[in-house]
């Protein structure tokens, strides 16, 4: 049951991975336990640091919204995304159109090849 999965080119052993994970976790937790625990909870020492500004009460104001999460990736690939989002128009007949064009392309080429 706990065997190895042999692909043609190597193997994957889940139990070995889990063993290494526990060893690494042990070291991580040991390092974490070397920290100081003599701080006073609930006072200024426990606050988050927000570049020296006032931390707003509502969590709403300090979250990064999901739409700006990968803005750099999107801006770098802007020509690609403009084309890709241009295909996805959302018009019903375009959806059927791409399908019919694909089947027509396959039908023509299978008779030629």
């Amino acid at each position, binding site marked *: 049951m706990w*065997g190895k999965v042999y692909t043609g080119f190597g193997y994957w052993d*889940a139990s070995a991975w889990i063993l290494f994970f526990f060893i690494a976790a042990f070291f991580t937790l040991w390092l974490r336990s070397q920290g100081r625990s003599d701080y006073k909870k609930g006072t200024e020492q426990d606050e988050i640091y927000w570049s020296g500004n006032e931390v707003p009460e509502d969590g709403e104001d300090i*979250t990064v919204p999901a739409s700006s999460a*990968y803005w750099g990736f999107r801006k770098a690939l802007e020509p690609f995304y403009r084309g890709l989002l241009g295909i996805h128009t959302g018009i019903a007949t375009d959806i059927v159109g791409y399908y019919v064009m*694909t089947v027509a392309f396959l*039908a023509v080429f299978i*008779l030629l090849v």
Partner: protein
Amino acid sequence: MNWNDHLPALILIIPLFGAFIAPICSLGGKTARNFLLVVISFITLIVAFMLWRHVLANGISYYVMGGDKFNLSLPSGMALPVRIILEVDAFSAFMALCGAIVSFAGALFSVNYMNRFSGMGRFVSLYCLLTTGMLGMMVTGDIFNFFIFIEISSIASFGLIAFWRDKPTAIEASFKYALISQVGSMLILIAAGTLYGKYNMLNMAAIGSVLKMGTMEKLALVFLVGSLAMKCGSFPMHMWLPDAYAEAPTGVTCLLVAVSQASLYGLMRVCYSIYGAAMGSSFIPWMIIVFGLASMFFGVSMAVVQHDIKRLMGYHSVSQVGYMLLGLGVGLLVLDDARAMADYGFTAIKGGVFHIFNYTMYKALLFLTAGAIYYATGKRDLNEMGGLARRMPYTTFMFVIAAAAISGLPPFNGFVSKLLIYESSFAVHPFLAVVALVTSVLTLASFVKVFQTAFLGPEKNSLAKIQEVPAAMLIGMAVLTAAILGASLFPSWTLSTLVEPAARALVDQSGYIGAILGGGM
């Protein structure tokens, strides 16, 4: 009477019975109706499990509908099988098991999720009908019957996707799906009619035994491959899929995932068991590989920039279907080359089949967690969510497991099936493995975004009063989590017991044909 002989018919009749009894049961009140839904799904799951055990022990199991005996496929001296024959080999039984597990999880989830809506008698009836259609697609051995079950599941889906009639986007999604589904089904019917007109038979095994490639068979193959790839959601024809998956109620989306897998089953049955060795040129395998690559890459590129959680998961569905098409296409490519098959072809097929199981489990779980978020907060837009991990710990835990599985992180099951696909597709051409790896990285990126924005982060005042979802929904999600963890911790057992018989049955075209034509009296 031996129960095991009648299992293929029982697996279709039980959900169908549930579908017809549901309006009567809902006269008994909400509890009776919910009880019916859960009990019917559970009995279907048990029958699917027993059918799988029976097929593993006894080989291909077939059932002649309406015959004198259940296995009289060639009655009194006839050369062709004349009735509708259900043929269940290990691959069909495997897919029926996946579909039944997902249907049970979705049914448990819908018990609480839909308690704010009326007309639930019709929902239960349509849900059971969709289950029947999906299971029928997987067990039938007759190509016209396959078309009928595709239509049954499509029509039930149209009604279920548009179930919230007050939402304009749900009606729009259902209309687009209905339009493209109807055009696709007409092409499947033309293909079935062409094969009938040429060979005068509708049985898949019988057609497979006499098929010779000619112009009409090539056109039939193209229509079947194109339409079934459309119903799975592969690249140029995938645009209905994120809309339909996002707008349907979540239990239904969970089941629609399995219905798309049934179409993938149909595609593989056509390519491996009907055409199989007669396929001739490698045009269709390469086209399936190209569809797979395009779906993988373009699906995940669209998913990274979405901000609606269910639409994002719908685009990930498109991308994961690409993995399965890639694995199974590589296997199809080297089907007649025995040495390449032993080298990397059979590994590719095993990877593709294992990925079907993994994908069905983790994708259904992801949709259920998105549905749980919607139930608790009322929002589907990631821009408005945040800090949910404090209040919904169980949902967060299950989401992390599903997200790690879909991204292909070890030690989860997604990693194992993707490893098999990477290594075997690398042997065909390195570019295939490169695209698969880039897609995996982008999938991880997208789910890190979802996890961070929905679950981590500071707590918002607008979401201060949410609670964890009710128990029935958590149990539904736990069923799928248990399946994922089982496949992750025991990968070699899962591969040898669940996947390898299915992959072997898929490759064995002569066994599939011989069970019907050599059997009977």
